[in-house]
């Protein structure tokens, strides 16, 4: 839909091609809706429905996030001699909500094909805001693309999403989120009934439930982590970069908190949540933990990448009614989130944000003292962290670089290409060296940390490792010929450069601009080395295997 929004005049006809059901949905909606009252349309698009609603005699207020669409719709409204009031912005944002609150309450709220454009977390916020904006007897109409309730559809959707996530690491794409368990989501706030169902499109209508303003009991953080925790954590450690194992965002309890207990905020990456849960349990702290939607990414990366922001915290505070559970307004935010979370923005909503210790294990000392020591604000990179990061990086390298090349050369070998056995062996031995070097570099990292440039770190590491490996092997085995020595020296140098440069993001010492410069620097020796490897192979054979 996002792509269509660039060309408003084609939008309706193109949209109908994708969803031919939309005609039926609009018809059924217009037949069911009342003839009097105030209506809010979320995602008004070209304004077609808004104009028709206005012609029925309803007072129409419309929201859309696209500027182009609103401009187009305003023209349509004028030429049709209708009267529609437009708001530009994201319906789930607090800013638009406040504006709409002064316009409301509404007798009808309509939204077609918007819900499935939002992430599952935002879908809940969307429905909750509709609940708040409806008048007591008000009626909603929501049409959305859903995931059908059979196993194959769910499985197919999961496969599609995981594939998308894999591609998304390298190439930012755009995806929709068909609604899972639409009816159950609506049941949280509404009495709903299905008005129309075609293919995977559903149109629901309904009215507000009388939700008492009482505090419901909250689930424990422990229950969200489920069974076989250590296996899941191990999975995160080993495959952390390639997949995002996440926890459902929400407000959870640890121990037996009361209304004066502290409130902690964290990201929804499984490993992060597990670490927080362990630390809190070990120090026997009773508290609330608010898990925000950070797309299954850890605190620092999510904050740096724009997923863990003040906006995501404010959204979570609003959706889960956090203020109902507390008499105070203090929120403890992880210090590393300071890259993305603007403290001033949260203060505007009457909360008092504080940045907690950098390491969750220091949380008890912090809560007792009520303030931080400078040492609790400083990031460490000790041997345990380095081992884990090294392992994570090594597995990433193997899956992303080594295995595909190995597989390719294997396939070429099966096809019976000349010398493919020799090539397969070279790549195999290179990969093994790469895996070992990657882990070793992580362990001895502090030696190289006197310089900031990861290119220089890699170059020094490469010189040492390639000389070292060749000297050891010369001593162990029969002497190699000179071209073999040169070939492997250069190849190991190249692998070390790649391995150490790629490790930058796993350390707390990498600087965006410098990594950028290092990557450009890396290209020159890389091309030079690859060229010389080819020259050695062609002009000075034979090149022997290393082991």
């Amino acid at each position: 839909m996002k792509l269509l929004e660039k060309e408003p005049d084609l939008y309706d006809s193109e949209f109908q091609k994708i969803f031919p059901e939309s005609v039926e949905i609009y018809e059924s909606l217009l037949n069911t809706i009342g003839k009097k009252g105030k209506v809010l349309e979320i995602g008004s698009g070209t304004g077609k429905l808004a104009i028709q609603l206005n012609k029925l005699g309803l007072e129409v207020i419309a929201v859309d996030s696209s500027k182009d669409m609103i401009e187009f719709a305003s023209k349509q409204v004028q030429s049709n001699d209708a009267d529609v009031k437009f708001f530009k912005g994201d319906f789930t944002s607090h800013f638009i909500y406040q504006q709409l609150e002064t316009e409301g309450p509404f007798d009808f709220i309509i939204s077609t094909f918007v819900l499935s454009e939002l992430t599952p977390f935002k879908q809940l916020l969307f429905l909750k805001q509709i609940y708040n904006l409806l008048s007591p007897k008000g009626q909603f109409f929501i049409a959305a693309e859903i995931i059908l309730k059979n196993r194959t559809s769910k499985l197919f959707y999961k496969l599609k999403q995981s594939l998308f996530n894999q591609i998304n690491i390298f190439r930012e794409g755009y995806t929709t989120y068909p609604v899972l368990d639409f009816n159950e989501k609506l049941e949280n706030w509404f009495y709903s009934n299905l008005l129309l169902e075609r293919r995977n499109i559903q149109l629901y209508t309904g009215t507000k439930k009388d939700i008492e303003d009482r505090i419901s009991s909250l689930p424990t953080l422990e229950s969200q982590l489920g069974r076989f925790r250590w296996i899941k954590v191990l999975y995160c450690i080993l495959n952390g970069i390639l997949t995002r194992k996440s926890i459902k965002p929400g407000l959870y309890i640890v121990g037996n908190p009361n209304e004066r207990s502290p409130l902690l905020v964290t990201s929804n990456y499984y490993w992060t949540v597990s670490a927080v849960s362990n630390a809190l349990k070990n120090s026997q702290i009773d508290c609330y933990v608010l898990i925000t939607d950070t797309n299954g990414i850890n605190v620092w990366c999510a904050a740096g990448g724009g997923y863990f922001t003040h906006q995501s915290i404010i959204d979570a505070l609003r959706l889960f009614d956090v203020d109902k559970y507390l008499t105070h307004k203090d929120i403890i935010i992880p210090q590393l989130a300071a890259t993305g979370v603007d403290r001033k923005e949260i203060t505007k909503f009457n909360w008092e944000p504080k940045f907690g210790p950098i390491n969750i294990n220091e949380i008890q000392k912090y809560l007792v003292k009520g303030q931080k020591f400078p040492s609790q604000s400083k990031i460490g990179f000790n041997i345990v962290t380095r081992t884990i990061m090294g392992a994570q990086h090594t597995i990433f390298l193997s899956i992303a670089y080594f295995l595909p090349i190995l597989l390719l050369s294997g396939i070429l070998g099966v096809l019976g290409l000349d010398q493919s056995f020799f090539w397969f062996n070279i790549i195999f031995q290179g990969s093994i060296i790469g895996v070992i070097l990657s882990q070793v570099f992580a362990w001895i990292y502090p030696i190289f940390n006197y310089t900031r440039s990861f290119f220089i770190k890699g170059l020094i590491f490469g010189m040492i490792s390639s000389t070292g490996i060749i000297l050891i092997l010369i001593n162990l085995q029969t002497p190699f010929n000179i071209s073999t020595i040169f070939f492997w020296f250069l190849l190991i140098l190249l692998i070390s450069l790649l391995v150490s440069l790629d490790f930058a993001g796993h350390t707390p010492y990498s600087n965006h601009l410098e990594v950028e410069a290092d990557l450009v620097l890396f290209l020159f020796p890389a091309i030079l080395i690859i060229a010389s490897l080819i020259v050695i192979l062609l002009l000075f054979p034979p090149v022997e295997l290393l082991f």
Partner: protein
Amino acid sequence: MTATIFQEKCIGCEWCVEVCPHQIIIISEEIKKAEIINTKLCIECGACALQCPVEAIRSHPIGCGCVSGVVRKKINIFLRRENPKTCCN
């Protein structure tokens, strides 16, 4: 490249001191203003600049540097995408 502190704007509130993950910002004794003591360790994560209430710190706006993030940024520029998300993961 490192973050830059414009001391004439600084009000000495110490927020940047608290959030710096490498603890390289201090409030100088004489003038009670923030300064970076070890620029070599600055990774330009942007935390100090974001928290500063008077916009006295300038830092590269993109978070911490990881290779896939940088590569992705390059690809996005190459493909001329609008508003590319930049993230390590």
